[in-house]
């Protein structure tokens, strides 16, 4: 790695003793000797294992649940269904007033995605829990599923989630988060070329080597210690407190080193049910996702569909950009309404465009709920934006790197979401890339600055 200190040197004071030093990471000693403690590196006497009975259907009504055979299975201690959960209906972001509550800890009337948790089985061994889970009988009436963004938004589509009553999240701005800046139709009318393209992605898994999980220990003083690999300790505590209708002072979350997160461990899924199980059995409870659960049950990065329409001039200026983006949230909100909103703010990319129109939708389908992942709301947007930039450059016969210099934002430029640009450094990154990658650009671009507009 090279630190290119010549850029912005006048804006920096590099006179530090600890900051900027490549000091060794003190936690690496534990990593290389195998002594770093992760949440699952603990065993407790009498610990029970929790296994979920999950929906085999994308969309179905639950007609009956029969746990009698499973209860007789050797080693089974307790079986939990929706009626055992004090506040079964929840949504994670209710803590920051992003509602409505739309998800059940254990499914009640319906299942809305293949893999949804229906019944929790607690047994003395993992094997007994697994075997007993297979003996739980759930009778379903299969309903028509909605599996794609396009199907979800059809006028006669079945409703995925009754708590929303429609197959998209309703923002204060309506069916999508909107950005309106300048007059995009006027921009298109004035443009030399118009290019409209559609970009898509499939769900992506965080795939940390350590799967999601927790171990809960009921303490003698009536409190519950929850050893967890959550990425957000109080988020987990506060949501568990609501779901369990248990005062927060009875909950103690202990984290430590997490074996990779990448956004996959900010949903509060395993802790509330494991704490409830520990409460109802009075015994320590371990609930750790299998690798298959991590891959197919834990929230992935959403599939997205992004339509970009641009108006561009022969001289390289983009004069209008309209983006319609759809995030496939799956069956429940989790963090997706936030992600779709973040995407809206991120468009139209790090470029100064006078006329911008953004519609960003959070769409519900009968799929595994998606949620946060590294680059939430932005990663797929950047793929779409930057491939579009390449296409635009080639459309007008311009070098793709030079084309980006022409449109790059500078300090003081007004962004589409109406914040003036500050601290821009896109141009300098591109100048350095031009050198490092031996991709020469015209000298007028190498003379540009993010801090002032020439002329």
């Amino acid at each position, binding site marked *: *790695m*090279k*630190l290119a200190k010549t850029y912005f040197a006048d804006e920096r004071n590099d006179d530090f003793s*600890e*900051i900027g*030093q*490549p*000091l060794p990471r*003190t936690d690496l000693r534990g990593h290389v000797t195998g002594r770093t403690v992760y949440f699952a590196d603990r065993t407790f006497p009498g610990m029970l294992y929790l296994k979920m009975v999950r929906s085999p259907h994308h969309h179905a009504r639950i007609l009956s649940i029969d746990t009698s055979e499973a209860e007789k299975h050797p080693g089974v201690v307790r079986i939990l269904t929706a009626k055992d959960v004090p506040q079964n209906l929840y949504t994670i972001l209710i803590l920051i007033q992003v509602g409505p509550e739309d998800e059940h800890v254990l499914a009640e009337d319906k299942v809305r995605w293949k893999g949804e948790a229906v019944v929790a089985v607690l047994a003395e061994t993992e094997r007994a829990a697994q075997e007993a889970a297979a003996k739980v009988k759930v009778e379903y009436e299969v309903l028509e599923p909605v*599996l794609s963004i396009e199907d979800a938004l059809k006028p006669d589509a079945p409703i995925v989630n009754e708590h929303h009553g429609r197959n998209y999240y309703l923002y*204060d*701005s309506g069916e999508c988060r*909107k950005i*309106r800046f300048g007059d995009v139709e006027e921009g298109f009318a004035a443009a030399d070329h118009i290019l409209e393209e559609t970009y*898509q992605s*499939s*769900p*992506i898994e965080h*795939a940390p080597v350590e799967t999601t999980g927790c171990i809960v220990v009921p303490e003698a003083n009536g409190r519950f210690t929850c050893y967890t690999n959550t*990425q*957000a*300790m109080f*988020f987990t505590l506060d949501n568990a407190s609501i779901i369990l209708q248990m005062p927060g002072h009875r909950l*103690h*979350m*202990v984290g430590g080193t*997490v074996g*990779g*997160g990448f*956004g996959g461990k900010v949903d509060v899924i395993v802790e509330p049910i494991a704490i409830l199980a520990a409460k109802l059995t009075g015994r320590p409870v371990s609930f750790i996702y299998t*690798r*298959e659960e991590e*891959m*197919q049950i834990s929230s992935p990065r959403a599939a997205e569909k992004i339509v970009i329409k641009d108006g561009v001039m022969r001289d390289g200026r983009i004069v209008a950009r309209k983006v319609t983006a759809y995030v496939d949230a799956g069956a429940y909100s989790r963090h997706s309404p936030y992600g779709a*909103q973040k995407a*809206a*703010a991120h468009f139209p990319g*790090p470029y100064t465009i006078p006329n911008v129109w953004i519609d960003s939708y959070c769409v519900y389908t009968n*799929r*595994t709920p998606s949620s946060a992942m*590294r*680059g939430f709301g*932005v*990663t797929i947007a950047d793929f779409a934006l930057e*491939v579009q*930039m*390449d*296409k635009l450059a080639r459309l007008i016969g311009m070098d*793709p790197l030079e084309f*980006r210099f022409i449109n790059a934002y500078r300090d003081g430029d007004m962004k589409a*979401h109406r914040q003036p640009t*500050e*601290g821009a450094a*896109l141009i*300098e*990154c*591109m100048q*350095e890339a031009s050198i490092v*990658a031996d*991709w020469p650009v015209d000298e007028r671009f190498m003379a540009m600055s993010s801090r002032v507009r020439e002329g």
Partner: protein
Amino acid sequence: MAWKRGRGVAAINYPTGMNLGGDPTQALVHSTPTGNFMVTLSSVDLGQGLRQVIAQICAETIGVPTEWVTVDTADTDTGPHCMGTFASRGTHRVGNAVIRAAQEARQVMLEVAAEELEADAADLETDGKGNIHVKGAPSLSISIFETALAAHFKHGRSISGRGMFLVPRSYPETETGAMKPSTCYAHACTVAEVEVDDETGEVRVLSIKNVFEIGRALNPKMVEQQLIGGSWMGMSHALYETTEPYYPVRDHGARDFNEYLMPGPGDIAETEIVVLERPSGDGPFGAKGPGEMCANPQIPAIANAIYDAVGVRVDTLPITPERVLRALRAQQAAA
């Protein structure tokens, strides 16, 4: 039929911290009787090394060597509230809270030292090695060890501080979407070079050259490891990863690491990293969040390089050999 080369570029920015703000983090700092410092948090270290960078931030602020600082975190009984480790907010939000707590602790430390030296606290400075002295008069000096002992046993003072950092929440304007998503942005530009087998659709990434602007590299070795790993993940997203390869069809879902594809050690590209630093106005020592954006620019850069190599566009992720091959067939059919 041949391997054909191409290169592509992408340039991006990334907002630091939870979008629209409203995501507080608090920190507590106190000294032990012998002048070591404890930082108490509830923030989570996901493996990116949050504890190490927080120790360096605290040490710099107080004026002691980093090894004198211990970070105790991820316990809701002892650590004050933190919104969590996500949205590239760890270094920025937690770092700022720790700076404020450390400044308050430092102030008490200097007041105690001032009493011991019979000087004015405003005239004192630290040497970063564990001593406090009067500015311009290095001989009028007291060690932090002695200062902490005096604070505890003689002055009855707590060398401690509380820190809080909160970017006020912004609410988007309904009709226009006017809002303040973030207070500072990191930047990147990536050039990828690929080889595409026009017979099989297979893509090899030959090199990835990344330039990242991250405000300040607080620990350059840790920045480097994060950026190299991120660059790999970007390449992985571009060409390999999905839980459902035929989305929206739900079949063929990957269940394990044999079915969920990622580039292995034999598939990695030659990777180059350059870091620029334009300090942010509100970051700890100017730092921005590098953790997420470092995995983004490789994806479009690789997509653009594939087009440059064989003249086909695959606008759906991941860009699998099957998709490249289908696009090549369509191209041939059209010709």
